[in-house]
């Protein structure tokens, strides 16, 4: 059944017609990921150390008011 399209479907069809898939090459894909990961290695190592020290830092302070 075809029937008439809703206003939303018509809008969507209009936008879909004006949009297009632009394939990402392997080189671009690698570039996105490489740049996303930039500096992460050092950052994660520092965070790991902080997490460990944070747990040690908690002294047995009684939290009385």
């Amino acid at each position, binding site marked *: 059944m075809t029937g008439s399209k809703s206003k939303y479907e018509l809008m969507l069809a209009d936008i879909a017609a004006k*949009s297009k898939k632009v394939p*990402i090459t392997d080189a671009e894909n690698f570039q996105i990921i490489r740049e996303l990961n930039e500096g992460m290695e050092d950052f994660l190592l520092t965070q790991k150390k902080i997490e460990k020290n*944070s747990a040690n830092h908690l002294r047995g302070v*009684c*939290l009385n008011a």
Partner: protein
Amino acid sequence: MDQSPSIIDIITENIKNPLRVEIFPIDQVAAHISTLFVEDYGLAVAVADKIVAKHLVDYFKTLKENLYVLVERKYVDKMYRDAYYHYYSSKLNPYYRDCIRLSFFDTEMVTDDFKRFDATGIETLKSRISEHYLGFLVLRPTFPRIIGRNALSPRAIINDNIECCLAKIAATVYAVKQKVLAFPHASQDHQTMTCAETTVWSILEYFGNKYPEYKPVLLSTINQTLHKFSYKRLLPSDGLTAEQITYAIRDFGFGAMIYSREEQEKVSYDFNSIISTYVESGIPVIAVLENEELGHAVNIIGRTKHSPGSVTGTEPHVTLSNGLAVIDFNKIERKYVLIDDNQPPYQLAKLDKPCEDYITDERWHSCDITNIIVPLYHRIYLDAVVATKNFYNAFRNSIIGVNDGEKRVARIFLASTRTYKQYVAMNETLNILVKEMILALPMPKFIWVAEVSKLDSYEKGDCDELYIQDATEPYKNSDVLSNLSFLACYTDGTFFVQNFGKFERVRTFAHPFQQFKENLN
């Protein structure tokens, strides 16, 4: 001549110890409570007056002046009864079991308003009560620390220009069931509860009332849990360590995280922005306040509201390598909303030396937030610090970044997919192709979101770019050739989506869209 009896005469002649309800303007309540403390609990008049003046009047000072209060005597409070049966009843002195409950309204109410006696529809009657109901306060007979369980709407507070994590908390008012949007609060009684227990209780009460995954618990259950982790007795309470608080939170089903200010600041990471990120995510955090002599725990549940101009007028916090200057919403200085069990609820304080802002006793003023404990949903594996770093790497990315050099406001937060997809579906101004793509995208229960706005868009309540990360991808590998936490982004009129390591790109058009505001009430 015979006088016909009043209804009160009939009740008191026939019912032993009848329940009684009265309504007063708020400025007359303190005197009435003082009388009840004398009549019902046998306190000396001078003692009752002093306790009311010190504890109740202080609480009322934070409330608006035009409120009306319904007073119920002989109220059975679940939280106090739990403490009573587990502790107070085991003592020699005859402690009382019953409490007084105060219910607050923002308009004049009379007792008839709570009963149907004519053709007025039930829904009309109930909706009038709901419209004006602002929550309740239980006064428990643990003199002088009388402020018991309470759930008060921020609408009742003088400083109501705030946005907070709030849950719908059920209560009955003169036999009519009601719900109030509030954050649970109680004061410590110094015997069964100190600040540590009340912060844990209120966090669990909040989540238990808000999400079906959790349930509210009483103090005896918290103590039972902590028994496994304590070398000494827990009653009378001597406080808990931050480790015990974390253990309790984890044992009740949360993926608890601890952050230390000292450690974060050693590597120049802004500790306060971690607090802000979680608060912006609708997740209340437990803050440990310490100085050389004092230790305390409070909940941070919200922040003051901003005018858009105050955000866009802030100097950028960072300029990225692609020239993008970013005003980080989570780094903007502001006051936060604290639930402190030594004070009335919804105290406002900055994150550096918070006690200076709301505690008069100067011994507290040097206290700083040394640690925070964050009750995360157990399947949130990606934390605020790594998620934020990841977003910043995306903002400066040469393909998926924001590369037009125009200044932006970035707001980073966690959202539940359920709430976020509803926001997307209901968003009037979001490009509908992007809307359909996001709705079709499989997502975990929680996602990290970064909304990025040009300054003029931000001032209109809009954003221009959007980045979404999967909160179940912790990004732990340091030698990865992928970054799996990124799910999608919408930037410069282009929608990018990642399918397990492979990015796809759909070029459509750019259009500002309404910001997400569902995390805080």
